[in-house]
């Protein structure tokens, strides 16, 4: 717990009432060194073959996640399965458009996940806003708020496209490039500033753990 590469000022949790501040962590996330050589390769293989999705549908695209469980698409054969809690899951699928209200929940859930964690952004809305590009309460690019590993375009992408996206994510993880957690820690101030720019009523802890 000593290799703190990034040491910003402690976050004050100022959005919370004073009596709740002590309940939450006020230490910024830190970067984690990957293991060396073949060990990390082996870990990455295990990570890529056991992708646990956070079962949290953030938009209409989540409707395309459900068929993946059925016999027709059967994501279990790829080692993919849904998990109900962010503590245990390793992949966060952003299901389409994210309203500002949902973004708060996305940020909280993302930060509660244990690293290494990966994000798949699904649908055009996550890339450039899609059909919601001029909406007053949806965000346009999700990667300004949390790091994204893979995008799946389409409106809606079919379940086959999702499976292809998962295969792409597996390649990224196996190549050791799925370092979203470290990227988030490295650019924590930038991400937080972006999040606070759109979320006006910031009544949640600055770092959730």
């Amino acid at each position, binding site marked *: 717990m000593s290799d703190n590469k990034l040491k910003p000022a402690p976050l004050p949790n100022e959005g919370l009432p004073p009596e709740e501040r002590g309940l939450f962590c006020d230490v910024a996330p830190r970067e984690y060194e990957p293991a060396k050589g073949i060990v990390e390769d*082996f870990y990455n293989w*295990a*990570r890529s073959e*056991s992708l646990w999705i956070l079962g949290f549908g953030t938009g209409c695209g989540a409707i395309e996640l459900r068929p993946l469980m059925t*016999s027709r698409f059967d994501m279990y*054969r790829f*080692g993919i*399965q849904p998990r109900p809690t962010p503590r245990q899951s390793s992949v966060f699928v952003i299901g389409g458009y994210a309203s500002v209200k949902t973004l708060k929940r996305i940020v909280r859930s993302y930060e509660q996940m244990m*690293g290494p964690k990966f994000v798949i952004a699904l649908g055009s809305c996550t890339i450039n806003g899609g059909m919601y590009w001029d909406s007053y309460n949806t965000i346009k690019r999700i990667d300004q708020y949390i790091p994204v590993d893979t995008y799946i375009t389409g409106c809606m992408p079919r379940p086959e496209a999702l499976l292809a996206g998962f295969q792409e994510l597996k390649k990224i993880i196996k190549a050791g490039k799925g370092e979203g*957690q470290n990227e988030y820690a490295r650019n924590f101030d930038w991400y937080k500033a972006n999040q606070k720019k759109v979320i006006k009523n910031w009544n949640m802890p600055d770092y959730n753990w």
Partner: protein
Amino acid sequence: MEPTIIVRIGYAFISLFVITNYGLLLIGSMARISAKVQGRVGQPVYQPYIDIVKSSAKRNSISHGIMFYLGPVFRLAGGIGTYMFIPAVFGSVLFRNFSDSGDLLLVMYFIFFGQLGMALGAGEGGHPYSAIGVSRGLAQMTAFEVPFALSVIAVAIQYGTLDITAIVAAQQGGFMHWTLATNPLAVLAAIIAFLGMSMHNPFSVVIAPQEIPIGPPTEYQSNLLGMLQTNRAIFNGAKLVLYMNLFFGGATNIVVMVIKTFLIYFINVFVGQAFPRLRVDQSIRFFLGVPTLIGIASVIIAAI
């Protein structure tokens, strides 16, 4: 020649290693079989290994205090403890473990022990779903322990001993000597209790692994979750071996053990694929109804 205690501890480690791997492969293969029933391809048989490696290879983890760490430790101790006092293979020095007179009572305690430890640890996690899961789990456990305890009492009366090795020894000599043939009511009650114990489908609401109320392990992650997953394999193996010993004549070599325990575990999958999930209140009513009456009947028959 009686092996020394050091050698026996060494043997116990080998035995534990075998049952862990066997349990993991059993979970994987049963998931695969369930998938086939549902018309899917299903996960690879070795998926539980990958999941454990993945969980253990997580880079960070969180803690909610000492009790939070001790929860999985107690659970693992419960699993290993259960297995360590059951003779896995009758007459084998290697798989004898630490079975001795009166071990049946000890094993029954150990089955409860892990769940209680987990309840303490999960409560420390502070998540409301953990508390819901724990209360559901303990309620259902209390219910299925009644038919199970009754059938164990029936077996103990029938053979006049609490020593598992002696119970297995009394069942040697062919199918007609098994408890299955000599006291079928006790076996029936115990098998119904086993469905609840292994938390497969009709009684799976406690863990509900892919839904929002995941149950006690809601807050557990990283290597703590890896520990719980490992324990699941050991505990499954231990329970199967216990059932095989008490009701199905034990095993005289490892191949027979594998075949018998596989078939006992298969009962779960068979029932689980055919019946939908019950709510906790329904399952408690179920266990305290007909299975308990069957258990009482088996005790009375054994006593007469």
